[in-house]
């Protein structure tokens, strides 16, 4: 069965949680006990409809305030696909959670409140989706019931949004517009007769037939060594296996490889998954690799194909999403975690910041505040082995850790 990971985005109260709840309800994915709980709470609160956001807003504070604070992962399946939907918060201060949800998704749904149209948050969310190179974006124009299912309103929003599209960097992104009412269920799982002017599909119909456009299927094989397996038992006295996950492409027995950073050459001798031997370790499998020669390899090293090296450098420039209340400033020191590899990093300079309304760039920036997105150059205490994000999702991304608080304070996409 195919799995489709989807993130949602949109401003606060645009109806993301309601939409997901509605999908669960209309696909009969809500079990009786969960549905009863929603019915009960909706009734207690005196609503004259079922509040589907209660299906995903799992925290007390969320249900009290009627907003989503933290990402929830929701699972359901149809006959055709399994879905994992990240219900992300629309509130500005929770943008970091939106980035989190989008980072592992193949598709995303940006909601727009039909009454409000394209607003600054829409720009931001679209920009982030484009920056993260999400393949398929659905723009769901929601609450159509509140604008009399008007075609005019829909067309206006569509044309406003199209203006943003012309400015995007990742032009191959596919964008589909769908007018919906999450509350009433129009064009969500089933097509409605209230908007005969709309000739396209309902939201779920659209998702059902998205190609398995695998977001991870770019680039060449990278094998960061996670863990060295040395059983030191009688049966496996000389066993020395390198455990890790293969990213970007396949590795096979006999491949000529180089271990970074030592640049030692070797060949792949064996590939194991548990007690089974394989010819090839396919992309995203967690295998154990054995090399021909007894060379010194440890965690954080990377095994790559001899003729396919990443960039090896002690500095890089990246688009950074800043997620902390303390400012990022030139000269500040952080830990950069690139895959599983941690290095010390110093902010060399902030090249430019994306304008808060995404109209352009701001130069001469002295610091980054929470939710800012900017191009930043870092200097490292030792080299890392990276690819550009646009060529390699995993090997081109990193997180920034504050060594004082240990928190993840930012994420970056190498340019």
């Amino acid at each position, binding site marked *: 069965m195919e*799995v489709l990971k989807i993130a949602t985005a949109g401003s606060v109260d645009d109806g993301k949680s309601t939409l997901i709840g509605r999908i669960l309800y209309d696909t009969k994915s809500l079990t*009786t006990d969960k549905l009863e709980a929603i019915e009960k709470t909706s009734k207690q609160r005196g609503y004259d409809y079922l509040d589907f956001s209660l299906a995903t807003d799992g925290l007390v504070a969320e249900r009290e305030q009627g907003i989503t604070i933290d990402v929830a992962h929701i699972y359901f399946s149809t006959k055709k696909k399994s879905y994992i939907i990240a219900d992300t918060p629309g509130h500005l201060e929770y943008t970091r959670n939106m980035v989190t949800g989008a980072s592992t998704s193949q598709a995303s749904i940006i909601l727009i409140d039909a009454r409000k149209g394209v607003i600054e948050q829409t720009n931001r969310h679209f920009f982030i989706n484009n920056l993260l190179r999400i393949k398929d974006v659905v723009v769901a124009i929601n609450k159509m019931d509140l604008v009399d299912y008007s075609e005019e309103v829909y067309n206006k929003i569509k044309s406003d949004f199209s203006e943003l599209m012309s400015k995007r960097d990742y032009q191959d992104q596919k964008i589909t517009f769908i007018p919906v009412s999450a509350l009433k269920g129009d064009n969500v799982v089933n097509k409605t007769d209230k908007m005969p002017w709309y000739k396209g599909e309902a939201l779920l119909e659209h998702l059902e037939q998205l190609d398995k456009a695998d977001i991870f299927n770019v680039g060449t094989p990278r094998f960061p060594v*996670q863990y060295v397996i040395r059983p030191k038992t009688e049966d496996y006295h000389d066993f020395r296996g390198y455990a890790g*996950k293969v990213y970007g492409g396949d590795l096979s027995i006999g491949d000529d490889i180089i271990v970074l950073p030592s640049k030692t050459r070797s060949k792949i001798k064996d590939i194991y*998954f548990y007690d089974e031997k394989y010819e090839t370790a396919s992309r995203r*499998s967690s295998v154990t690799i054995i090399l021909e020669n007894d060379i010194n390899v440890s*965690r954080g090293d990377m095994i790559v194909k001899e003729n396919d090296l990443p960039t090896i450098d002690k500095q890089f420039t990246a688009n950074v999403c800043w*997620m902390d209340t303390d400012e990022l400033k030139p000269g500040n020191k952080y830990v950069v975690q690139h895959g599983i590899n941690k290095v010390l990093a110093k902010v060399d300079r902030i090249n430019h910041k994306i304008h808060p309304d995404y109209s352009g760039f701001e130069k001469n920036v002295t610091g980054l505040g929470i939710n800012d997105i900017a191009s930043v150059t870092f200097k490292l205490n030792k080299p890392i082995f990276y690819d550009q994000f646009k060529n390699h999702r995993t090997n081109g*991304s990193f997180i920034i850790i504050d060594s004082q608080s240990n928190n993840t304070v930012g994420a970056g996409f190498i340019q």
Partner: protein
Amino acid sequence: MNKDTSHINSLENEAIYIMREVAAQFENPVLLFSGGKDSITLVRLAVKAFYPAKVPFPLMHIDTGHNFPETIEFRDRLVKELGLELIVRNVQDSIDQGKVKEESGRYASRNMLQTTTLLDALEEFKFDAAIGGARRDEEKARAKERIFSVRDDFGQWDEKNQRPELFDMLNGEIDHGQNVRVFPISNWTELDVWSYIEKENIEIPSIYFAHKRKVFLRDGMIWSAEDGVVYRDADEEVIEEMVRFRTVGDMSCTAAVLSDAISISKVVEEIRDSSISERGARIDDKRSEAAMEKRKQQGYF
């Protein structure tokens, strides 16, 4: 039927990656083992992650003293067969030491009391990471959980201030005294777990399969009348039914379901068609809508 296992394979690969990150990033991890299907799955994943080396961390069972005897017997056999190290800490000891008070009455359960014993044990052994089998599909507060979930010195979950988790990258940096709860099967559903158990041919305790049991009905749920652990009013009549358990937590809060699924494939079929969620048979979640979140804040799994 030709079963497509690509989804379950990718979940397995992800979980193995997480297991290895735990072993690499922490000094003293532990795998919390309840004897239930989720923790049995975790053990299987841990074995696969480090093979042919031994699993580089011990298992720990917080025993409420109200476990199904089948679970305990199964636990001890599994540990022995796989050559794993097992630590057991008892809720009864926490009660005897006066740290927690036994609940009484109709809905008495030791489930809540586990938290104290767990936190004490984590401190006793200075564990800095505890691997658990919680899944996001189980319950709406759990749907919010990270894969690496940081707990403060008091074992508490600060649900509104969680670290963002991007891509595969897991940040296990913590201060002294803090610890991390790790959930390698976060993205699995109940059906995924069962499909995996079927695919891997993993042995599980017999109470997961349909069997004849003396039970009684209360609040529309089926309770075990054997072993005398669940409080029963004199007028609550004992009957015999074919039942099985969907979770094997503390006996006092785990209800049975009517079933004639006597094999794994039958269980998988049954779950696929079921209209009640797994935790629908857990009385501890029914106490209030926020029951799970409150317990988690206090350090519960």
